């Protein structure tokens, strides 16, 4: 691979499935099965799971692929690791075309898929890793040290001689990652890697990927998740997929900014009567004010104040205090990545309905 080339490059990659339409209640049963077979009644339709997706991932970057269930994240990962055959478009993994050089592609990849597949429950963690190491052609001397090293990296050294089936879900996930690291690939495809992990294990796992794998070892990571908080914490850049289409691409803060429809200041006050609201409404830059019972401060009130510019906040605090109310907190409401995803996917839906 040329030094300047990005490790992952997708250009208009498309994957379409032919799926059977679910049968109606009246179509069930043996007689209907015979009818369908005899009449050769087609009950199939096309589903585009990945629709002309293009993006590039830079070396050492953690790239998040976000989207709701059924967005096409796993299909995209499975296509990139050659488990699925794309219908059109190209993808280069470490310089290898996934269609023309599937072997080179696989050699460049370490994958953690969404289920713990291909493990042998009555083999220890070490024996399982040695098996996969041999399939990758690691020599016996290197193999032992490599297995030891990856178990150390993922924090499984203490469980090395334990049967795989005795491991907890979190440990099994770590073993998945250890296997992905065994051949020292430059690129890691991690599909929902923290699924089923408790809060601490998930945090440790993210820390390990961020600090050890990307920081020290300079691996490139494609991380799929529907956990927006996680993506916000770990990803350098994210792409939002919805029904196979790429809706947005950029840094998490850029994506959040895209979803921002207005600047909203939130004030926690001890009273929200007419005089307080009028005082705030008269403040320059304020567009609208609404009040509600405070959820975090029992007995207090929350004012949601829509402003044109963030600078208006200093005037708001002065207006509240001058109206005789006590101000306990005043913050600008941040749009979360989750809000951005919901906003983008719903907006897309609305546009579609408008066209109809």
């Amino acid at each position, binding site marked *: 691979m040329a030094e300047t080339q990005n490790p992952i490059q997708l250009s208009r990659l498309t*994957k379409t499935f032919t799926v059977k339409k679910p049968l109606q209640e009246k179509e069930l049963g043996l007689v209907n099965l015979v009818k369908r077979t005899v009449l050769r009644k087609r009950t199939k339709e096309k589903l585009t799971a990945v629709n002309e997706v293009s993006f590039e991932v830079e070396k050492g970057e953690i790239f998040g692929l976000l989207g709701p269930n059924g967005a096409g994240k796993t299909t995209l990962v499975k296509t990139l690791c050659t*488990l*699925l055959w794309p219908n059109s478009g190209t993808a280069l993994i470490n310089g290898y075309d996934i269609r023309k050089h599937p072997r080179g592609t696989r050699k460049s*990849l370490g994958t953690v*898929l969404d289920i713990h597949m*291909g493990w*042998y429950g009555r083999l220890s963690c070490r024996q399982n890793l040695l098996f996969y190491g041999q399939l990758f052609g*690691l020599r016996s001397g290197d193999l032992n040290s490599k297995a030891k090293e990856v178990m150390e990296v993922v924090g499984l050294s203490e469980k090395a001689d334990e049967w795989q089936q005795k491991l907890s879900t979190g440990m099994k996930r770590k073993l998945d990652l250890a296997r992905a690291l065994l051949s020292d690939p430059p690129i890691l495809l991690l599909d929902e890697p923290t699924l089923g992990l408790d809060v601490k294990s998930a945090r440790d796992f993210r820390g390990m990927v961020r600090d050890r794998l990307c920081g020290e070892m300079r691996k490139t990571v494609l991380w799929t998740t529907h956990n927006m908080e996680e993506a916000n914490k770990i990803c350098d850049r994210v792409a939002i997929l919805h029904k196979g289409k790429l809706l947005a691409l950029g840094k998490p803060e850029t994506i959040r900014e895209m979803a921002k429809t207005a600047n909203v200041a939130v004030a926690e006050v001890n009273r929200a009567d007419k005089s307080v609201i009028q005082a705030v409404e008269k403040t320059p830059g304020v567009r609208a004010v609404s009040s509600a019972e405070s959820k975090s401060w029992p007995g207090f009130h929350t004012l949601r104040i829509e402003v044109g510019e963030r600078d208006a906040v200093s005037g708001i605090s002065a207006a509240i205090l001058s109206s005789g109310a006590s101000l306990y907190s005043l913050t600008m409401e941040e749009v979360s990545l989750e809000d951005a995803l919901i906003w983008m996917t719903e907006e897309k839906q609305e546009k579609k309905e408008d066209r109809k």
Partner: protein
Amino acid sequence: MKSTVLPFYQMYAFFRRDAVNTSSYKLNFIFSLVGMFTWAITMGVLGKLTGPALQPYITQYGAQNAATFMLLGMMISQFLQVSQQAPLWIANPGQLERIILTPCPIPVFVLGTMGWEYFWHLLSLVIFIGTGVFFFGMRLVTVDWATFAVVLIMGILAMWGFGIISAAIQLVTKRWDPLTWILTSFSFMISGIFYPPTALNQVDASGTLFSLAWFLPQTYVYHMVRLAFGGSHLADPTILTPLLKLSCISIGLFAVGWFVFKLCLRRCQLEGSLGWV
């Protein structure tokens, strides 16, 4: 690692994995060995009991007795069955997906997965032959081992063909395919495990079953293995002609099987059903 050595190294990895896995079930491992011996004794006794009735049909196989006939039938049928069934394990979705992600080629995966089973059945072969020699008068001095080995290999190749076709069907349908079941049951009836196909004429005077039997590769294998145990050589016309026929069937089945498997694998990769169960 050199590319010429790598496939063998990978096959060894599969063998080692299966050996460790099997030996972890210690009690099962021991009882399986005892079970093989009991099965061999049963076949020997059955041969002795049916000996008088079988004798007229087995004179063509030389000086071997009916117990040996029965033991050889069961021993070889086990070998052929494992050859037919072993490729089905590769259709295991979790395993196949995971292996595809490694640089291990599919043929190496297929052979590697079968390695341990063959080792296990070689043990069974030794137990069957040992039981025959020590308890039922099996004679090894007359055996032409080269013929025996060649016939067995060709038989295994033919059964791989069937097995790979079955695995391909299973990849697409996600269910145990009927081909294996039909072939196994039909083979038990007509291909000569317990009695030679000529004996079928007693129940079917038209000779249809007898003719059908020679469409199955198993029939050729049982027939020629018994001839080899009676002392026939590869150059004997009694061996050479059926061996040529078996070779054609084996190569044809294997080639068709591999083609169908690749086709089904690609279909699964296209429709995304590789990981489905």
